[in-house]
């Protein structure tokens, strides 16, 4: 009996600690005195760190840690150093609002942000714009293709373009009988309109189009239906967990034969490789699984700088291999560099001031030096040169809606678990399919 008492007392003590912390932190927060010296600029990583999508938060922190470490090593920005601040949007659009507002109100010198992914973008983006904090978002919502928000920047394609790119690659390979299978969650479903718009334009046919629930105990019935439709290729988008279950059952039910699968580069990770290769073998995963996403070259200087730091940094080295091949985190890293360089050009770290210089950091102009890292850009600016930043995602040109969608890359796995580029889909081709 006494142990039980103690347990309850412990639980209550926990409550007391929280309450005490809140009481202690409350007034300090309300006073709004910057906790650290004002020479620290806070970079918000607005992403879910709890809840079902908590993995996103960890992954999106990587470009922030990498970018800020490199910028600080290059001497920081106008005498200030950068610091990453996780802002938990929980993946719930309602819970996100107080959390993000709180971060804006109590984080000292909060001047840039990355993240703001699909699940909560609708409620969090207005909050940052209202606070005049420029941000590079990784959300794929089509609704922001024509935004007029001045603080909004996106250097990664919208989901419908992603979907169209899947189809473009299938057509390139001559696969016209397409099975379209998407998990019914926000991030996967968003690709579907692009797929369906592109299929008729490529004279292909969706022999079956199914939306499946995530994390089900069995997709055998779904697999049987797909088999009956005799597809040449599967266009598939689901979380890695669901993908592994699905592939495993497909192989089992089709006598160890699975047609080629086209899916998003989000799965281009060693974890996915390990799971799926354990489930259906390395031969399939290295020969028939195509991962399509925003193009970037792993040969560029920008990529080498990014990758080297990601592996070296103690905060990121564990996750480095998971995200290095994926476009959205790379675009967040580029965004960080672009915002920091814009601060240098504007001679101001204030969001409302440097925001207007962002386009100039990346635009082509006569006499400009092409720079592929913050350090190089800072040196060139100090020498009085004009610069054009080319990032991990390549040369960036923002349209008037602050969107940039470049070309698409098709990767396959190597037995080393890294991806290798096998095909590039030009951005113009994708636009044509959506037009």
């Amino acid at each position, binding site marked *: 009996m006494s142990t039980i008492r103690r347990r309850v007392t412990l*639980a209550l003590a926990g409550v007391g600690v*929280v309450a005490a*912390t809140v009481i202690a*932190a409350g007034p300090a927060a309300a006073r709004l005195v910057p906790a650290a010296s004002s020479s620290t600029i806070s970079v918000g990583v607005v992403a879910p760190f709890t809840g079902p999508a908590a993995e996103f938060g960890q992954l999106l922190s990587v470009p922030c840690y990498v970018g800020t470490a490199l910028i600080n090593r290059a001497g920081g920005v106008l005498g200030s150093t950068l610091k990453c601040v996780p802002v938990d949007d929980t993946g719930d*659009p*309602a819970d996100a609002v107080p959390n993000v507002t709180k971060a804006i109100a109590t984080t000292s010198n909060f001047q840039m942000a990355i993240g703001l992914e699909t699940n909560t973008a*609708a409620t969090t983006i207005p909050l940052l714009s209202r606070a005049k904090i420029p941000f590079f978002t990784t959300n794929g919502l089509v609704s922001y293709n024509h935004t007029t928000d001045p603080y909004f920047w996106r250097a990664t394609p919208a989901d419908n373009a992603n979907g169209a790119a899947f189809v473009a690659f299938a057509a390139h390979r001559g696969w016209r009988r397409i099975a379209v299978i998407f998990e019914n969650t*926000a991030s996967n*479903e968003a690709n579907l309109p692009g797929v369906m718009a592109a299929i008729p334009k490529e004279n292909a046919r969706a022999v079956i189009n199914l939306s499946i*629930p995530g994390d089900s105990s069995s997709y055998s019935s779904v697999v049987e239906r797909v088999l009956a439709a005799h597809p040449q290729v599967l266009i598939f988008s689901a979380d890695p967990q669901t993908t592994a279950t699905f592939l495993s059952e497909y192989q089992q039910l089709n006598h160890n034969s699975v047609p080629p699968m086209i899916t998003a580069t989000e799965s281009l990770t060693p974890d996915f490789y390990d799971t799926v290769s354990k489930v259906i073998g390395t031969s399939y995963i290295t020969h028939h699984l195509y991962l399509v996403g925003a193009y970037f070259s792993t040969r560029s200087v920008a990529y080498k700088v990014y990758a080297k730091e990601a592996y070296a940094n103690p905060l990121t080295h564990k996750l480095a291999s998971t995200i290095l091949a994926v476009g959205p985190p790379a675009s967040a890293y580029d965004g960080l560099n672009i915002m920091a360089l814009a601060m240098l050009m504007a001679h101001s770290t204030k969001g409302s001031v440097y925001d207007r210089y962002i386009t100039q950091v990346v635009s082509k102009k006569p006499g400009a030096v092409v720079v592929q890292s913050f350090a190089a850009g800072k040196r060139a600016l100090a020498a009085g040169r004009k610069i054009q930043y080319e990032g991990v995602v390549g040369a960036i040109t923002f349209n008037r809606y602050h969107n940039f969608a470049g070309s698409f890359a098709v990767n396959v796995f190597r037995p080393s678990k890294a991806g290798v580029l096998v095909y590039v889909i030009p951005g113009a081709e994708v636009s044509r399919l959506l037009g």
Partner: protein
Amino acid sequence: MGAAGYYATVLLVYLGTDLLAAWGMNLEFGVAGVANLAYIVVIAAGAYTYAVFALPRATANGGFQQYILGLHQSFAVSVLAAAVVGALAGILIGLTGLKRLRQDYQAMVMLVVSLIAATVIGADTGFLNGDIGLSLIPNPFANLAPTTASWAYVALVALACLVGLVVMRRFTTGPLGRTLRAMRDDEHAVAAAGHSVVNLRLVVQAVGGAFGGVSGALLVAFIGGWSPGAWAYAETLAILTAVIVGGMGNTAGVSAGAFVVYLLLLQGVQFLPQFAAHPGLSEDLGWMVLGGLTIAFIWLRPQGIFPERRPRLGIARFATAGAPPPREEAGLGGAAAPPGP
């Protein structure tokens, strides 16, 4: 200062809508005795109703989201519609409560309803835009300067709470309140006194549902977006904890409970230091403490911090130690003063 002031308005709006929700749940559970573990669905129904009444047709914004209706109605009409839909949802739930199911069975049905609703809305993209949810939901003060708009909204929510308080009083005090409590504690006695238990119960359910509907509508008009991620079944537990901690059946107590759970606990953990190696830990902790709090209160003080005042000698609500509770027990049980070991 803008940011701190805006944070204050956000917290006030959330507190106001959480109060409405806690009051509504208290009406259903604390007053009518219906254990509604799907209360968050009622709130969600209100939010969606407001959204599809206030939004223009789905094709208007370039057709990037799909939803039904799109009536482009005024704020007042849309909130009213949300209240009506909330009330209907409350009645529907009340009807299941009329089946003389054991209370824990009823609770389970509601839990499952909660899960089904989220799955169905998520699966059908043409209905309320699936899992991506709705965005650009109109705010009534969108044309005002941002600071004025947010404080005006606080005033609006305060007004709604005031109206809510008046309604609550009518249902918790006076002859109606007494009848309802008596019904919760012993419905046969009330029926014998000539009241229709079914009607009484459905009225309370409708009002409780309307509270939830308005709560959802006011929240969604303020934040502008809504999706299944916003109404996971665990959210009901937070409201329920507010009711349990504060003191079921006691309006002031429940209000205090909402304050403790939403502001001190779930917002409070945001102020804990973050660990780079484990950034979500403090929020995880918030939910652990929330669960622990519920258990601790049911164990140690099931009547809450502020127990319901019993103006007259009531029928014993809490079973004595050792004996099973009466069959239609609405309380959480447990003797107020635990016997010594």
